[in-house]
């Protein structure tokens, strides 16, 4: 068991190591992908938060709005001026435009304009005919008056009162424009007077035509009194059931008034009649039954001084009020309104589904549609508000207004759409970067393979590749070939030069061997003081200088420049080497001046400078070491000064073979080597004549 656990631990460690290496290798891809995924996540989260917060707020607003709209609707439909309610008869009062038919009203509205009770106070201009607005249909007509066509309308209402205590009557109100009424004189034919022709058409009853003529009222003369004009415009309505102009029928009664009405003073004739149902020769079990309500009614008004007005029985008029109008007016949100049986929600008395949606529709541009589409995918709950109402005609009702709840505001839809687009772009960008990183990885891998020369034929792999990888691969191959060709060319050049140098060195070796040994032998053979020996010694000296120059070059090439504390080393140098014969002094920081040089070769440099200074220093004076740091750019300066004579050419002393010493062991190599070594440090050396003395200045690179 322990072995198994150990094996699993090893595998886990290897997996962790492998994962770490892979992550390190693909760190760019990983970091960028993580960043983009994080950005995508933030955008998605923002869109989600934004959408749901907006939807929540919108739902709250919609709920409040729907509640307000429902209340407005109910107020508009249940508070008719005559105290009636449109909800009492949704079937009849639903449509804004309908054909002229008999509608059912809850209470009677017919009454004579002139009665015994108001005989004394009657005035035509004070009469206020009443009729339920929901019953009235309005038809536009043109009134041709002396070639001036004035748009007017005619209002018509046919109604029956449910459970009418007065009997089974049809009540009608007809209001039409007029100029001057041509009344009918009793006993006269109808031909020369204004006439209203009503046509009732029913499959069960058959066509029935009723003519209405306006006749002067039979007002007692004593009732007219001092102001008979107050009865002007009042007419009795006589009904005729046949075309021969015979006796009026007693089944029809009513009155009419003609007067000018505000606001423009146009003249209208308002006819109020009551028709006994027996006129239709039909027995009705209930009142009003479907036969009566199903009758189509046509209307024709003949005016003697104007063009006739004809309303076909199939022509639709506009209701003054209706549920549809009330809905379109009070529910601008377009929410669906249902009038339901409160106890049975399946029984729908009226619904607004068939109506065109009204009001608040967002502009249907692309962004809105896109936002709505997204919102549709994230569709929320339907928002419902309902209100119970009591209809005296059909009992308890429930008015319910419901909204789909998925229409988000325009601004929100645009923001949502833009966030979604941004998210998609980020996602595409992540994919693109992943593909690019993969391509770069492949290029890098191939470039590495090329660099390692693992391909048998490195060019074949990319020969026919025309994509980015193939192109870059070919570029790398071409560059690789070019570089290798240049390297090979330079190698050949170097080889040739090395060969020349080798030949040169071989020649020098030959010279050295052929000259040095024989000269040494000749010197042995010419031990005396002769011209020959002096010549031989000169030759030997030249060979030695030549040999030592080669030594200097060899040592310089092996220089190891490192960082050293020059101040510390010089302090120790002066302390170690100072003696009675060699007076040395040092001024400068005791330590902490870092410079780059080879400590072995610096020792050699100092030995030679000090040797040189010692030869020219005034006896009893110090050879002074002054060290100062000039800053990072100027480096470190060491001045070795001795009191003594000047030198005419300060640069010449650093040339090879130049020496003032007469010793045969002095070849003039020391200061030459010192300059070579200091140069190899990256520094510089020069000599200066200074007041009362001579100085060698050495500059070092500051570390």
């Amino acid at each position, binding site marked *: 068991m322990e072995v198994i656990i150990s094996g699993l631990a090893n595998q886990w460690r290897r997996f962790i190591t492998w994962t770490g290496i892979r992550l390190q290798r693909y760190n760019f891809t990983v970091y960028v992908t993580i960043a983009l995924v994080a950005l995508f996540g933030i955008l998605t989260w923002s869109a989600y938060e934004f959408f749901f917060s907006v939807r929540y707020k919108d739902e709250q607003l919609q709920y409040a709005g729907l509640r307000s709209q429902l209340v407005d609707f109910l107020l508009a439909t249940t508070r008719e001026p005559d105290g009636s309610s449109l909800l009492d008869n949704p079937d009849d009062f639903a449509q804004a435009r309908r054909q002229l038919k008999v509608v059912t009203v809850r209470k009677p509205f017919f009454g004579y304009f002139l009665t015994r009770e108001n005989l004394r106070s009657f005035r035509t201009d004070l009469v206020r005919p009443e009729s339920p607005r929901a019953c009235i249909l309005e038809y536009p007509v043109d009134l041709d008056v002396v070639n001036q066509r004035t748009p007017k309308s005619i209002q018509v209402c046919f109604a029956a009162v449910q459970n009418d205590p007065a009997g089974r009557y049809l009540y009608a109100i007809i209001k039409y424009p007029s100029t001057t009424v041509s009344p009918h004189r009793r006993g006269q034919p109808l031909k020369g007077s204004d006439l209203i022709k009503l046509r009732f058409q029913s499959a069960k009853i058959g066509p029935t035509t009723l003519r209405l003529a306006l006749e002067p009222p039979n007002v007692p003369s004593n009732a007219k009194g001092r102001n008979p004009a107050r009865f002007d415009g009042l007419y009795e309505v006589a009904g005729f059931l046949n075309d021969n102009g015979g006796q009026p029928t007693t089944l029809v009664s009513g009155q009419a008034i003609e007067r000018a009405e505000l606001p423009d003073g146009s003249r209208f004739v308002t006819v109020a009649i009551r028709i006994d149902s027996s006129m239709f020769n039909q027995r009705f079990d209930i009142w009003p039954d479907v036969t009566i309500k199903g009758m189509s009614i046509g209307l024709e008004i003949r005016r003697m001084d104007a063009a006739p007005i004809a309303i076909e029985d199939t022509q639709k008029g506009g209701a003054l009020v209706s549920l549809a109008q009330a809905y379109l007016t009070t529910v601008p949100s377009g929410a669906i309104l249902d009038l339901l049986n409160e106890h049975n929600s399946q029984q729908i008395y009226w619904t607004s589904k068939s109506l065109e949606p009204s009001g608040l529709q967002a502009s249907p541009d692309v962004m809105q549609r896109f936002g709505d589409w997204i919102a549709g995918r994230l569709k929320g709950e339907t928002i419902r508000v309902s209100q119970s109402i009591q209809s005296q005609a059909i009992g308890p009702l429930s008015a319910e207004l419901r909204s789909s709840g998925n229409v988000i505001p325009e601004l929100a839809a645009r923001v949502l759409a833009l966030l979604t687009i941004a998210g998609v772009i980020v996602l595409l960008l992540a994919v693109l970067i992943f593909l690019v990183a993969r391509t770069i990885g492949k290029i890098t891998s191939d470039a590495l393979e090329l660099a390692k020369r693992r391909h048998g034929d490195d060019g074949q792999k990319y020969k026919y590749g025309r994509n980015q990888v193939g192109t870059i691969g070919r570029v790398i191959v071409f560059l690789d070939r070019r570089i290798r060709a240049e390297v090979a060319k330079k190698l050949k050049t170097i080889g040739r030069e090395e060969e020349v140098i080798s030949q040169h*060195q071989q020649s*020098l*070796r030959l010279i*050295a*061997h052929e000259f*040095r*040994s024989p*000269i*040494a*032998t000749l*010197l*042995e*053979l010419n031990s005396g003081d002769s011209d020959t020996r002096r010549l031989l010694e000169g030759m*030997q000296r030249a060979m*030695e200088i030549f*040999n030592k120059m*080669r*030594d200097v070059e*060899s*040592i310089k090439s*092996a220089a*190891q420049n*490192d960082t050293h504390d020059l101040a*510390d*080393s*010089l*302090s*120790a*140098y*002066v*302390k*170690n*080497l100072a003696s009675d014969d060699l007076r040395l002094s040092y001024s400068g920081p005791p330590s902490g001046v870092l410079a780059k040089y080879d*400590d*072995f*070769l*610096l*020792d*050699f440099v*100092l*030995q*030679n400078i000090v040797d040189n200074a010692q030869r020219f220093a005034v006896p009893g004076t110090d050879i002074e070491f002054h060290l100062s740091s000039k800053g990072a750019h100027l480096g470190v300066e060491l001045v070795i000064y001795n009191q003594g004579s000047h030198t005419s050419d300060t640069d010449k002393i650093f040339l090879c073979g130049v020496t003032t010493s007469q010793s045969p062991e002095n070849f003039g190599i*020391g200061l030459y080597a010192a300059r070579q070594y200091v140069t190899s440090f990256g520094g510089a050396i020069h000599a200066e004549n200074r007041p009362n003395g001579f100085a060698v200045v050495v500059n070092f690179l500051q570390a």
Partner: protein
Amino acid sequence: MPRILIIEDESAMRDRLSALVKQIDDVQVDCAANEKEADVLIEQNRYDVALVDLQLSPRASGQLIGLRYASHLAFLHCQTIIVTGDTRELLSEVGMVLTGSDIVTKPITDSVLLGNVERALLWQSRDPSASATPDLPPDLVLRPYDRCCHWRGEKISLTPTELSIVSAMWDANGKLVDLKRLTEKLKSGAPHAVTTHMTNIRAKFKAVDPSFNKISCHGGDYLWAR
């Protein structure tokens, strides 16, 4: 009595070398002017020190006959000193072959040659039990009298003079070794020669170990850092 063999084809140089070596007390000197004489003497005698001219009887092929004798004598545990007038590059190559041979270049300085011969005689008469250098770190093998130096398992070809300098620095036990003491190790020459030797030593150690930094120079003194 120590025996010293001089192999030199130029008679004047041979005579001079012989005269110089004979200044050392209690030594017997034999001279060979060519290969034949050298073969006979080496066959008949056992030599403690040999001075060999590298360009003995120069050949058109460039073959160094003296190198063959130096190598053979070293195999016979004879201390060899190469005498040559050749250039530094060639001597470095020879030094790679003849590990532990000192090299004296022409024209010869008497003191330098005598210093090398005396050191060679001293090493030849060494006490083998004293050859071990104490307290050596595991990565340094230093047996100067066996002409052996290894650094971190790699053999380093040091001349006897260079071995003496390394040994002297190691024996200083982490303290600075002044230039005068190292100059004495050379038995001849100027302080400049020490710098040259130190540069060569460092280069040889660096050749086998690029990170080598044990030797440093401070105030004109040298230090082997322990």
